[in-house]
């Protein structure tokens, strides 16, 4: 953080949160690997390695408007949506893919978080 980062916010706590998040992201980028992503694909629930545990914790505690959900469509297939974070504003579709299983959709949510993390 530097003077250059100074913007006027109503809640100064956001500055501290942003700093914490920057540090967390740089750790997560240092441990991110294909193996970690594969670990989630194989088993999205239950006990995980420490890096994956920390990565999932970051995903799950991001601000609401950066969170995703799975939309189960009437036909039974699944899509990824992003929450609005605004009261009464419904979630928006992310991408056009649909998934045959919930497990695949959950992993797709995870991959969207990774995309946000890496900016790629």
């Amino acid at each position: 953080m530097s003077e250059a980062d100074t913007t006027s916010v109503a809640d100064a706590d956001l500055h501290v949160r942003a700093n914490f998040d920057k540090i967390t992201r740089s750790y997560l980028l240092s441990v991110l690997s294909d193996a970690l992503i594969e670990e989630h694909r194989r088993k999205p629930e239950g006990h995980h390695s420490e890096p994956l545990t920390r990565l999932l914790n970051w995903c799950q505690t991001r601000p609401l408007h950066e969170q995703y959900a799975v939309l189960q469509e009437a036909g039974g297939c699944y899509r990824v949506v992003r929450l609005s974070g605004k009261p009464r504003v419904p979630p928006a579709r992310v991408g056009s893919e649909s998934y045959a299983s919930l497990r695949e959709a959950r992993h797709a949510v995870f991959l969207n978080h990774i995309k946000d993390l890496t900016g790629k």
Partner: protein
Amino acid sequence: MAQQKIFGYANRISVKQGEEITFHVNCDGASEAQAQLVRLIHGDAHEAGPGFQEEEVAHPLNGAWQVKKQFTQLGSFLQVEDSDNRLAVEGPFTLFCHIWPTIPKKGARQTLLGRWDTRNNTGFALGINPEGYLEFWVGDGKEVDYVTAELPLVARMWYFVGASFDPATGKATLYQEGVANRYNSLLGKVVPHDYASHVRQTFRFRHKNVASVPFLIAGARDHHLLRGDFVNDLYAGKIDRPAICDRVLDRTELDACKTGAKPKAAAILAYWDTTAGYSDRGVGQTVFDAGPHGLHAEGVNHPVRAMTGFNWNGRDDCFRLAPDQYGGIEFHPDAVTDCRWDETARITIPSDLQSGIYAMRLRIGPGTGITEEYIVFIVRPAKPSAKLCYLIPTASYLAYGNESLSFDAHIIQPMTGQPPVVTELDIETYEHREYGLSTYDHFEDGAGVCFSSYLRPVINMRPKYRMSSMNITWQFPADLSISAWIRHQGYDCDFITDEDLDREGLDAIRPYNCVITGTHPEYVSERMLDAQEDFVAGGGRLIYMGGNGYYWVVGFARDNPACMEVRKLDSGMRAWAAKPGEHYLQTTGEKSGLWRNRGRAPQKLTGVGFIGEGFETASPYRKMPDAWHRTASWITEGIEGEIIGDQGLAYGAAGGIELDRYDLSLGTPPHTKIIAATGGHSDNYVLVTEELLYAYAGLVGSLDYRIRGDMTYFTAPNDGAVFCTGSIGYGQALPANGFDNSAAKVLANVVEAFVKDGPLPGTRWTLEEKQWR
């Protein structure tokens, strides 16, 4: 064509054979719905269970129902009973009240009090303009004159505000002063804010009184072409002791009123004494006018009372100690406790319809998703006849009614460890928000929701529904797994609800040998708790099928059992926290919060109480040494090996979701046996907050042995007994593998023993068991 959707509710949640029930339906895009009475058999489509099952029941009222668009009045406000239009003042007058606004800068006008028609611009009112400034205005149907304060109102600060108007001179005077003390407001006196504003202006126009416009507090009359008259410009925040006088009060007089003094009696037209009517049993929805005409006001959609007023001193923490400090009434523009829709149809429950869980199924168009509605109700027997009674936890259904945690609660994804799985129904309900909130939600101003009612569509109290944040059935649809099992077993069973127990007490369950609960009977009134305790002490047998039960202290208003109140406070896994001084139920006068904090931990009745929760995996139980004890070995008879409940519809096993633990220090009966316990839970399982004195790292499933569900058993006086599963997931394990599984086997052993008259199995050993272990 408009989007097709259909929603409805019934006037009752529990109805006896031979009684009447009315249905109230709102429909878009169709004028006729196909109605079919159904008995609900199973509610979850999960592939490990029997799938969704219902049985159509013949009834003369089945068939086409005329349906229409119905409108819902959102928002809480007070409606003044003024049939003689005494408040249609033509001469000079003054309005005043104390306020604690929560969203002053709402971007929309909020009315505090007055006789105002927003559509035709007639009348007068004191309110807050869209930018957050106190404002007084008058209108003659063409023109409106305003006088506005110089400073915006600050949220969550107490003010005394008023306005006077003299039509003879056109002089309008606005009065605004801060009245924060050390306790009553968000900010203290160290903040260098200026709260006062006094403005005088000469109006060009005069107010015109129209006879049909009502005097309202916290809202104003509006009109819509299709809908007709309704209340709009709703206010968010508290109002304390509003009044209207029939002359201009001068600055000195208003300075006195600011401290809580009443104006001279001769000047008062109406003075709503919001502190009147309290007793140690709470307070109702009528706000009494202490003025000469008795123009009492009636709360619509449950404005919240038993709230601190402008003069709360921070020392007296309950209206029972100092009612004069509890004049605050809290209003919410998004509250709804009764949709007040026109009746669509009424049916008489056939006197030979078997007691059970039923619904009126309504379909339009494709008849799936939001074009299909199930209005659920429980049919009680006219006369009890079975030995087994299923106590349907309707209070807990209300608590969760229309929850929107997936969309609004930042806490939910870390809690559940998974992204929510939402459907069209969830999104539709969330977007429109016309059917009110649950006690897990917050109003738009951030306040926790303390009232929930079934006089509105409750979209998660229906079959096929899964709680989106956890992607499992929850409450009502989960409880269908238990009734499906009871039916599969062929047990004779009567069904009753929490509402019946609250109204009738022990009498409602006295005839039965055994009462079995739902999966998550978390919300309990004192009468419900007393009845179950007396039932067990009197020789009844209780099977507590869930986790996190007997937890919150709730109250039902005597005159309106459809509406439940809870205040969440102090400790416990809770979605919100009541503010200081606001911990007592307005409906009963009791302290709310956890029963544990009132000396009645769930362990005292059941043997177990809430210890941990997690939402992505579940575990089976492992037998503990007491399983082989000669007084209790009959419970696990027929179970090979040590493992119980290794299948299920909720995360694949019987032990999970919310877990309860045996704890002697909280009143578990000392002779209670732990038959089996879950364990090996993931770290998504966390310790409950009421267990926390100091927090430290490691209060999670794999590190803390206390986080488990205990299957327990103890005997009570007069051949009574209690058996607990200690886990919410147990009920959803029953249908696994065609109802053929170890969890179901254990429960069958217990139910079959518990419904029999006379001594329980294993009790012939108890003479030797004087030492109890």
